[in-house]
């Protein structure tokens, strides 16, 4: 029997128990097939993330404190010191894209904790019993992390603008910024969900998260140019997707020389690899 068939014959008692117009609850929806399934699942997960943010913005405000302090204290102090070669722009301007990338990464890198919480709460199992392939579920979650990171990035951009950072307001370039933030967040959230699939517990993931965030941040060009790094750190920076994100943000927001093609290429490949790795380990969380 095809799954499109009604759940059960329409019973007379249905009208009494479920109200008069019960036909909808007796007819399974027609399944989406092919390419339309993935965007539908991504949209569903992103909608949930935005709904949660609408109900409770506390996280948005508290997470804005740290980047504001970085810009206000570190940025303004190092602008005076002039110790870091920035190519002729004020240091606070130079570091602003790095702080935007950092604040987005911090949200995404702890997304694995959310998926473990969802596992413990039964939410993940319930989603896994829906007609959603695991790769689509991970992609949806990863883009939801991207949306959340993007909202955070907007807050930091506004703070930076208020502190006098000379950012572009070109809509096309801002769209590029959004894409870079989302792609990088997809990668970092998938990295986090991959580790979650390996370590399986929140406590262990917290440890891993803290162990990798700072090396990722300091091993990138967020605070200083790659040219001033020692050779080994330059090698780390070369394989660190955060560096490519910062390079793209700097080029788009400040107009500094950048490698947008390579940056977006690396970010897209990293995101695809992240989705593949996290999807393949999702089954371990379900057990």
């Amino acid at each position, binding site marked *: 029997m095809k799954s499109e*068939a009604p759940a059960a014959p329409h*019973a007379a008692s249905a009208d009494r128990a479920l109200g008069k117009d*019960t036909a909808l609850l007796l007819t399974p929806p027609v*399944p989406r097939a092919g390419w339309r399934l993935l965007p539908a699942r991504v949209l569903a997960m992103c909608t949930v993330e935005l709904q949660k943010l609408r109900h409770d913005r506390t996280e948005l405000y508290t997470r804005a404190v740290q980047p504001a302090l970085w810009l206000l204290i570190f940025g303004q102090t190092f602008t005076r010191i002039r110790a870091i070669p920035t190519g002729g722009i004020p240091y606070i301007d130079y570091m602003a894209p790095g702080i935007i990338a950092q604040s987005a990464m911090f949200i995404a890198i702890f997304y694995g904790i959310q998926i473990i919480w969802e596992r413990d709460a*039964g939410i993940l199992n*319930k989603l*896994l019993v829906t007609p959603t392939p695991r790769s689509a579920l991970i992609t949806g979650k990863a883009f939801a992390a991207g949306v959340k990171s993007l909202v955070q990035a907007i807050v930091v951009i506004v703070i930076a603008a208020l502190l006098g950072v000379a950012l572009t307001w070109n809509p096309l370039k801002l769209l590029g910024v959004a894409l870079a933030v989302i792609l990088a967040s997809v990668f970092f959230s998938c990295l986090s969900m991959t580790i979650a699939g390996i370590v399986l517990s929140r406590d262990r993931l917290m440890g891993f998260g803290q162990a990798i965030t700072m090396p990722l941040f300091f091993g990138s060009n967020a605070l200083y140019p790659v040219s001033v790094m020692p050779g080994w750190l330059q090698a780390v920076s070369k394989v660190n997707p955060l560096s490519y994100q910062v390079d793209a943000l700097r080029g788009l927001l400040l107009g500094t020389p950048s490698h947008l093609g390579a940056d977006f290429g690396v970010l897209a490949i990293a995101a695809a690899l992240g989705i593949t790795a996290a999807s393949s380990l999702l089954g371990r969380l379900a057990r």
Partner: protein
Amino acid sequence: MTTDPADMSATPAAAATATAEAAAAHAEAVSCTGLTYAFGETKAVDDLDLGVREGEVFGLLGPNGAGKTTAIRCITTLLPVPAGMVRVFGHDAAKERMGVRRMLGYVPQQLSADGGLTGRENVALFARVFDVPRRERAARVDLALSAVDLSDAAGRLASTYSGGMIRRLELAQALVSAPRLLILDEPTIGLDPIARTGVWEHINAVREATGMTVLVTTHYMDEADQYCDRVGLMHRGRIRALGTPEELRQGLAERKGTDTLPTLEDVFRDIAGSGLDDNTGGGFREVRSTRRTARRVG
């Protein structure tokens, strides 16, 4: 179901046989054959044979660690099983996962509604992931919420709901896709008696209205006695007794030669015998999960 023109020319006897075979194939909502699942050295489900008939409320009973949840996870495709072991309305859970999932409504043991979303948003999420088209989404969500008496609370965050309301919300989440099989894993765990009755009344009302099959696990024998059409008593990964609660109680009374009808719990103790030892009660994770659920429902 469409009829193949070729079938029209078949003899009446052949047609009758085909009809009987088709009926037999679809009479069972769930069929497990020799289902075995092990976590390392521990066999959680051991050679389980189980058939759930279409349209019935079937209770899978047993203490923590009996293998009920593992069996449910195999049926829901959460755990991988070899082909041919588990079928849902004739669909193989190993080969046709998406087909099986489209027929399921699943309520896990934990309180799985998202407290950061309203009741309506919780149900709408499941409408979306089951591909309910936008034009009928709001109507379906409202119907599902109305079916569990949550229309008035639909705009409130689920974190403000009582335990019984959350269970009903989960029921609405499961109903929004019009499943043919509703699977409930310990739906009343941790609830007070009034909330338990409320949850069961809604399960029964929905079942009566839709004719869907309900597979429920519980370790509350009184609930199973009262609400299930048939029960399977599970212990150490196997079904030890199967039948209507009445049949099982009558059977024990006859074996014991007593006029007093025993309870389902007596039947279970008789079957499990000395097997109810320190090893019964589930692993650390299962007990923790059960306690967490009980704590969340207050």
